[in-house]
């Protein structure tokens, strides 16, 4: 029962209370870059969710059964980034075949998932917290979904914002950053939620 409560709290904290973008400020580049249209935001969010979940599981297996056993934990950064880069390459090939339109709309940002710090950050934090395999999987999925939620909300706001007259110095990134700050304030309200 305690284990189940632990899983629920991992999911809630990954999606809302400890949102990867708005609370831990990781993965901001794609958050600002791909949030202009809702449709590509959904695609990007799901792609990142896939990469985060699979890469954190693979990194967990790699760390537990290879790096930790051989006592070469200091190589984790190099090993993890290789795992992430190959996964992104795989996703690139699969998407090009299955959904060329989504592939086109994600563009260069698909390759940039490799350098999305949310992915490496999750893999590192999962290892640092010493979770087991199922907890790792749930952490990966919920952090990915949290990223997707933030990205879709931001895209919705920016689609509306494009219709308004914004003061000239704020056009582009500054207004997006201020909007993200106000969203982060709203998400800060979730920090009262606790299941333990």
């Amino acid at each position, binding site marked *: 029962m305690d284990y189940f409560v632990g899983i629920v709290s991992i999911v809630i904290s990954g999606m809302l209370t400890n949102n990867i973008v708005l609370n*831990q400020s990781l993965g901001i*580049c794609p958050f600002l870059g791909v949030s202009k249209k809702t449709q590509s935001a959904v695609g990007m969010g799901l792609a990142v969710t896939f990469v985060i979940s699979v890469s954190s599981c693979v990194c967990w297996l790699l760390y537990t059964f290879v790096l930790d056993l051989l006592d070469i934990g200091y190589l*984790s950064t*190099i090993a993890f*980034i290789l795992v992430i880069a190959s996964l992104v390459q795989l996703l690139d090939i699969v998407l090009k075949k299955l959904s060329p339109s989504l592939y086109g709309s994600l563009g260069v940002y698909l390759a940039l998932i490799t*350098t999305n710090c949310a992915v490496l950050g999750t893999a590192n934090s999962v290892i640092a917290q010493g979770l087991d395999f199922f907890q790792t999987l749930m952490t990966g999925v919920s952090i990915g979904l949290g990223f997707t939620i933030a990205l879709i909300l931001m895209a919705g706001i920016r689609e509306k914002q494009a219709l308004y007259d914004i003061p*000239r110095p704020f056009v582009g990134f500054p207004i997006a*950053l201020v909007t993200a*700050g106000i969203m982060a304030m709203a998400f*800060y309200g979730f920090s009262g939620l606790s299941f333990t």
Partner: protein
Amino acid sequence: MTRSEFKKTALGGITSNPVFVLVLGMCPTIAKSDNVINAVSLGLCTAAVLILSNVIISLLRKVIPDKVHLPAYIIVIASLVTLVQMIVSSFLPTLNDSIGAFISLITVNCIILGRAEAFAGKNKVLPSFIDGVSMGIGFVLSITLLGAVRQGLTAAFGSGFFDKTMGGFIVLGLMMALFNQIFHIVKQRQKHRAALIERGEP
């Protein structure tokens, strides 16, 4: 390398500042600019990796095959980051507690891969070194400035807003707007002066 090329490369850290103009490497900029010490130390670690990776990649630019250049760059950067991680964790344990998680994330900082792709992979060693130093200084200056402003605001209004992520977003957004406005005014002045000279009025 001619004098004008040198000047352009050396001023790159200001004219195409990685944070305020290119908008790269946002995550560590926002996450670790909550006070000046974190900001300066993370900035210096990033700059060290940037300079070394620029030099090494520029040395290897004829050896690395074009098809696999990105994975090769990432391996070079990840090895350098591991080195920095080892040095910091053994010699500066208190610093490691406060910014340790973000040192490993220097690997995926877009500034470093961006400079490798845009500059070091195509240029000789000396220009790449200068580019690394200039961009590194540009990054350290911007993250330190942001850290100083946020620490000052935290001291003035109490903790809980400006030292959190939300404060980071808003302060960075406002500062970027301010710099946009300053750049705009400078450009207008230059245009105005050029027009005056063209008409023969000094």
